[in-house]
């Protein structure tokens, strides 16, 4: 009986093996097919490593003594299942001093369906873990190739506060659309998420070491939106983004919430050798605890200019300011100078100098001894992509 079974198995196996081999042979015999399959798949990746040296405060690790504790790496894949449907996902790891721990996370994963796809307009929906479009840079903030300096502008993107997770993605859906005309194109995106747990890491960045006392902490119904309008073939770009989100600790007896509501105005102008970028945000942050509530208004902006010596070499200068309506707090000012050299399409080296006046945006957990008022930071980063 056993041998009959074996024979039966073997026959079935041989038959299906033939089918599979036939399929593979068919694929190989048809070279255009290989190209098509390759074109329906796209795999990209990036990795970057920084060295940081500072005076005043630590920024991402023990940078007063020199820190290698800032690294980003991601691998993403896209599959075009049919002309209108694309599946897209990314695994990502980020280490940034005590604000991020290098764990590998599913950064985003969504189905992206284009409902209308006309020659000069389109409308689509994404479903899954989707990216939040916010300001010019939030949706591609982790890749040195797509941001203006090693550290994101603190004024709009909260780089040093370790709140990336709260801004970056939502578990839910995104509607997006675009219109092209002879002289301009307009895009919009709105993402809406369901409630999602906040990681211990981010909560620690938000409220300090007492974070470990809480179990039930969630982002509640975040809504992000962005409307952008480009003209002169993308040389001029304007955008209006908004955020509306609540973060809540629901442990018994400690119903504490943090509401963020606000908007960002963004503008950019490119010339052959020069680019000018400015973003302004106003955020209303309302904290409610059983003991009372506290409402703070944050006004922040940055102005940035970039000069391209050659397509491979550019220098940027940026001034950032963050101010609150709290009477006793001085505005925080950041001055940034960044030199970027791209020896090839895949490699980028950046050398930046930062002068940060005020403690806003200085990672609290990197400085357990307390924060100084002034920080000078030199940062060097090597980035690679494929």
């Amino acid at each position, binding site marked *: 009986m056993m041998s009959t079974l074996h024979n039966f198995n073997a026959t079935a196996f041989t038959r299906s093996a033939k089918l599979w081999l036939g399929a593979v042979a068919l694929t190989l015999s048809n070279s255009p097919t290989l190209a098509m399959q390759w*074109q329906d798949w796209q795999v990209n990746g990036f990795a970057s490593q920084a060295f940081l040296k500072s005076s005043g405060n630590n920024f991402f690790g023990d940078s007063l003594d020199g820190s290698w504790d800032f690294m980003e790496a991601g691998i993403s894949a896209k599959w075009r299942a049919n002309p209108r449907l694309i599946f897209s996902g990314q695994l990502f790891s980020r280490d940034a001093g005590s604000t991020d721990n290098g764990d590998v996370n599913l950064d985003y994963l969504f189905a*992206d369906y284009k409902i209308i796809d006309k*020659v*000069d307009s389109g409308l689509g929906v994404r479903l899954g873990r989707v990216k939040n479009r916010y300001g010019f840079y939030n949706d591609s903030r982790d890749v040195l190739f797509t941001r203006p300096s090693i550290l994101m502008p603190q004024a709009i993107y909260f780089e040093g506060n370790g709140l990336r997770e709260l801004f970056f993605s939502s578990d839910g859906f995104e509607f997006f659309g675009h219109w092209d005309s002879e002289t301009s194109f307009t895009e919009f995106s709105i993402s809406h998420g369901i409630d999602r747990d906040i990681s211990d890491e981010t909560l620690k960045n938000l409220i300090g070491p007492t974070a470990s006392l809480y179990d039930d902490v969630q982002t509640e119904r975040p809504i992000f939106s962005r409307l952008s309008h480009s003209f002169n073939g993308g040389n001029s770009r304007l955008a209006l983004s908004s955020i509306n989100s609540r973060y809540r600790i629901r442990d018994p007896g400690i119903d504490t919430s943090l509401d963020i509501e606000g908007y960002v105005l963004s503008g950019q102008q490119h010339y052959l050798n020069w680019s000018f970028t400015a973003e302004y945000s106003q955020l209303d942050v309302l904290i409610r605890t059983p003991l009372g509530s506290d409402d703070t208004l944050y006004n922040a902006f940055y102005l940035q200019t970039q000069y391209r010596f050659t397509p491979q070499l550019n220098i940027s200068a940026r001034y950032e300011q963050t101010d609150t309506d709290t009477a006793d707090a001085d505005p925080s000012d950041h001055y940034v100078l960044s030199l970027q050299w791209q020896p090839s*399409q895949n490699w980028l080296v950046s050398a930046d100098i930062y002068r940060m006046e005020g403690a806003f945006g200085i990672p609290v957990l990197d400085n357990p001894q307390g924060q100084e008022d002034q920080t000078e930071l030199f940062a060097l980063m090597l980035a690679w992509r494929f």
Partner: protein
Amino acid sequence: MTGCSSPPLHHRQLWRRALACLFLCWLGSHCYAEPALGLPQEVPISADFSLLINNETLDRELSLASLRSIFSMRKRSWDNNQPVTVVVLPSRSKTHQRFCKKVLKIYPFVLQEQWDRQIFSGGGLTPVIAKNEQELMEIIRNNPGSIGYRLRDPQSRLKNTAYSPAQGIWQ
């Protein structure tokens, strides 16, 4: 024992066949590319450039807005539902830079920024980069739905190639 083992085995065999069939169908849907005659078309678009298009439902009046939508990877499919595949030369090549400036009227670094945002923010697919003009031509010839460009050089190219202006097709 036979009574117990046979049905699962039978099921397994069925599953294997079904899977193999599905795989074949999937392959088939990718393999079967109608070898359309006269494709790709070469359509003069400016004094310097012509577009190479492997799609029979081409709208001859591709406007600047449509071209920008296509080359910025916002548009995904043609009218006949074929996926749009954009094929370009390396962004540092003089031809590509000239195409951006003269035809799309976009600075090459601005177009590159748009692609980089697409790549790393998970949006649509990004262009296929051909090493040189021959490879670009080869990819377009073999892939229905693809679009690219090439430098027109009327002095040298028109002499050697039969061009039928009526059909807009290079033979």
